[in-house]
């Protein structure tokens, strides 16, 4: 990821980065597409891929934080979903089921590239954050704070970091994240809170905040 490649100050990203293609299945629900795909309709599954690939990619990115790796993991997860489609009974939403597969595949990939990943995991995201301060000094200070925050997030335990990144991605509801992480919603909220607290403690140690 290139620093500053994406950009305006304190922006919010659109969640769907790849627009769904218009087609005859545009008004069809996920459930109907799933039924068609389960009957062997590869086109229906392709439509499901179009709908959910961005969410799958972002889940993988939250786990791996390297776009190339996340893309590989997303493809892997989507193929896996096709293979396991016969076992989908509709107990949960298809998207939730798909995200759980994606998360597990991404975690598996993270484990396999653990050592390399720990060296490579970028903090460059902080460079994308620019303060809305009035002067150049404010901008520099905001940038520096963002770097420290990114570093503090990187140092969190995987459990807390995953919860925080997924929750703040803006892509998923708490229910979906809880299903992905296989924890109750209450536990998830607690983890997000703890993650914030630990990041703040590091900022206090750096003098960005008072300890009160």
């Amino acid at each position: 990821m290139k620093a500053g490649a994406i950009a305006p100050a304190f922006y919010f990203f659109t969640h769907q980065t790849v627009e769904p293609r218009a087609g005859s299945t545009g008004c069809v629900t996920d459930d109907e597409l799933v039924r068609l795909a389960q009957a062997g309709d590869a086109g229906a599954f392709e439509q499901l891929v179009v709908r959910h690939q961005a969410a799958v990619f972002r889940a993988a990115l939250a786990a791996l934080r390297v776009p190339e790796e996340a893309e590989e993991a997303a493809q892997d997860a989507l193929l896996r979903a096709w293979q396991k489609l016969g076992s989908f009974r509709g107990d949960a939403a298809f998207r939730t089921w798909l995200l759980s597969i994606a998360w597990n595949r991404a975690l598996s990939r993270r484990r396999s590239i653990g050592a390399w990943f720990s060296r490579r995991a970028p903090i460059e995201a902080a460079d994308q954050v620019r303060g809305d301060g009035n002067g150049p000094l404010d901008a520099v200070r905001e940038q520096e704070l963002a770097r420290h925050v990114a570093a503090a997030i990187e140092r969190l335990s995987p459990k807390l970091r995953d919860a925080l990144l997924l929750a703040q991605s803006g892509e998923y509801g708490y229910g979906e994240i809880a299903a992905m992480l296989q924890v109750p919603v209450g536990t998830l909220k607690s983890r997000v809170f703890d993650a914030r607290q630990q990041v703040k403690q590091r900022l206090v140690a750096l003098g960005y905040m008072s300890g009160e």
Partner: protein
Amino acid sequence: MQPQEPREVDGVIDTVARAMTSARLARDLSPAIAARIAARIAARPPWPMAWRVAMAGAVMAAVVLVAVAWWPGEPPAKVARSIASESAVAVPPQQVPARPTTSKGAVTEIRTSRPPVRAVSRQTIVAATVAAGDVDIRPLAIVPVEADPLVPLEAVEITPIDVEPVRIAGVGELVE
């Protein structure tokens, strides 16, 4: 360094966390997925069910064959033949099949092949001289079994065991 407001820091945490998962998906994955699915479908054999059924049938046949070959009982035809020949020639006890079986016919076979009951005569022991100090242990008498009128009596001579007189010198007066 000027301390930040907690709310401001919360905002920065939110923004940085969001930015860390904000990379865009560079390309549409659906064509690649569709191509890989199509390749898998093309590579899949057109007769998977027939193949599975045939394999299952072959496995079951193999299991049945092995079970028949290794079954621990004798075939029923053989048992019937032994029953038929039972009336003519008495089967020695050693040749009676001892394996348990659930077949009713086989149970009958076992009962009919029991050796005939033989009467046992009273055993007597030749009087032996008992020296002073020896303990005389007399053998138990065996009561003759009541004769079966259907079975011809056949006397069996059982040689008594040759028991040497026992001397218990160490017990002393404890022995009566």
